[in-house]
């Protein structure tokens, strides 16, 4: 008897929780239903058509586009570029961002100037970044070519954006430069979220700063790390902006990404049907990778 009333009490509590959760989630759900659901369904529907994107006539082709996609070398090359960018973005942006944040957290107010200047790249628009890096990476008067020439004593040309494998890595470098400041701020907020008494207790116990970071802060920042990695992962898989301004996917597709490929097909080559298929494929791939990542990196969820 006692047990039963307990479960019913638990049931009531669970129901109440569900209702409360629903109420909190409702505004977000509404907006998502208006602006997200239709585009997603629409994309999948269009992917079953051969359509130039503007005509009122479209031809139903079933899975034809999907069959093409599976064998489309351009798409899988682009996917590979995305994966390379993803790996390097996570390897560069997150650790550097973490280091910078740790430095600032340790230094406190005296390092405000560092903080503000380090943050500048994130504030610059992709247009300005693309312009400046086009010149900075240029063979003629660019920073790298000039430096190499000074070091070697003769004129050296370092062609970073114009050749096949280099271009992708040049872009990765620029991306890291642009986005690291965000992760810096993000981890600073993470540090800010740690109870200051924990730090004080650790120091009283004789821990050094390094030990505090390694043994206490980083484990506490677990969920923050995981989300940062997820953000970087998804961000690099659907990346568009800077590439579009810097290389437009060139030279010879060597920096083509899924998103730029999709954009060209849909809006420039009158191939909306297949473009939508690429978009849908991209959506599926990114979601699967992101969810796998969520599963693989289990962090202790404290509640």
């Amino acid at each position, binding site marked *: 008897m006692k047990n039963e009333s307990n479960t019913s009490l638990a049931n009531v509590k669970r129901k109440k929780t569900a209702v409360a959760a629903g109420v909190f*989630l409702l505004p977000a759900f509404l907006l998502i239903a208006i602006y997200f659901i239709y585009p997603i369904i629409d994309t999948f529907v269009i992917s079953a058509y051969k359509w130039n994107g503007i005509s009122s006539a479209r031809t139903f082709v079933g899975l034809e586009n999907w069959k093409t996609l599976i064998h489309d070398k351009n798409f899988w090359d682009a996917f590979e570029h995305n994966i390379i960018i993803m790996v390097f973005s996570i390897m560069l942006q997150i650790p550097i961002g973490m280091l910078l944040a740790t430095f600032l957290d340790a230094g406190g107010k005296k390092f405000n100037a560092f903080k503000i200047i380090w943050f500048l790249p994130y504030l*610059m628009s992709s247009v300005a970044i693309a*312009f400046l890096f086009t010149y900075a990476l240029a063979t003629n008067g660019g920073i790298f070519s000039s430096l190499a020439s000074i070091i070697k004593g003769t004129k050296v040309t370092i062609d970073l954006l114009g050749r096949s494998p280099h271009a992708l890595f040049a872009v990765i470098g620029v991306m890291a430069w642009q986005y690291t400041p*965000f992760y810096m701020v993000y981890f*600073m907020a*993470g540090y800010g979220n740690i109870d200051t008494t924990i730090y004080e207790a650790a120091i009283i116990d004789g821990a050094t700063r390094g030990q505090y970071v390694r043994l206490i802060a980083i484990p506490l920042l677990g969920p*923050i790390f995981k989300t940062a990695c997820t953000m970087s992962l998804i961000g690099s898989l659907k990346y568009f902006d800077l590439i579009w301004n810097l290389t437009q996917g060139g030279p010879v597709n060597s920096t083509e990404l899924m*998103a730029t490929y999709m954009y060209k097909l849909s809006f420039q080559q009158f191939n909306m049907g297949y473009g939508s298929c690429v978009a849908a494929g991209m*959506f599926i791939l990114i979601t699967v990778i*992101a969810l796998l990542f969520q599963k693989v990196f289990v962090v202790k969820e404290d509640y």
Partner: protein
Amino acid sequence: MQTKTVDYKKEKRKSVIAWTIAIIMACFWLVLTLTPFVFMVLNSFRKQFDMLQQGVFHLPDPWYFLNYVEVVTHGFFGYFFRSVIVVAISLVLMLLISAFAAYPLARMKFRFRGIIYAGIVALMSVPMHVTLIPVFKLTTDMGLYDNLFSLIGPYVTFALPMSVFILTAFMMTIPKELEESAEIDGCGRFRNFFSIILPLSKPGLSTLAIYNGVATWNEFAFANTLLQTASHKTLPLALGQFKGEHALDIPIILAVLTLSVLPMIILFIVFQDKLVKGMMAGAVKG
């Protein structure tokens, strides 16, 4: 404890070396982040011809200030204020709504939690360009085409998945005990949310404000698609006035970009304090 005292000197020396290395690396990173910015600003004080002839990484010679006059006389402040309005409204809405949504995901146990969470991740994966046509259709159907406020819906919505995702992670790090004690006190979920969770999420919220604020401030694609009259356009579209099919005045464009980044820098300087302030500052009192 004993070894600590013995190693005290060694520790100290180690720490000095560590700090020296850290400062050197910090300065290196400083140069790396500052240089492009400085050249953006410097080049905005030149004529295009001088810039091209002397090279982009050259000091202005002579200094040329009329680019800024040109920018300001081409309706810069109009673009600017419209952007301020859109970004401000969008930010408030998106922070509030995503905090609402993140709260149950982070701190309640209910049936579809896992699925909803996965759904949020899936929504983050939607490539932005597939939404252009549907959002355009929707906006014209609602009669909001060429209306500044048509941007708010898409801006808020497309920032939601990422924001909910981040905030959920932040709210998870808030110690469970704080909330429970509140519940025992008789607070309802809502009071709990407003009086404890929301204030404690300040670092998360301010990160989001920065992330979404910058993104919205620079947003081009939706603004370009949904607005058409010059007097309704936002700041990122102001560049178009100096950029044609075959004409491009780079220094003026850099002047526009410099002017548009300034307020963001000022805001960051003013509010960056909020980022590092420990959460307990507000929580213990509350």
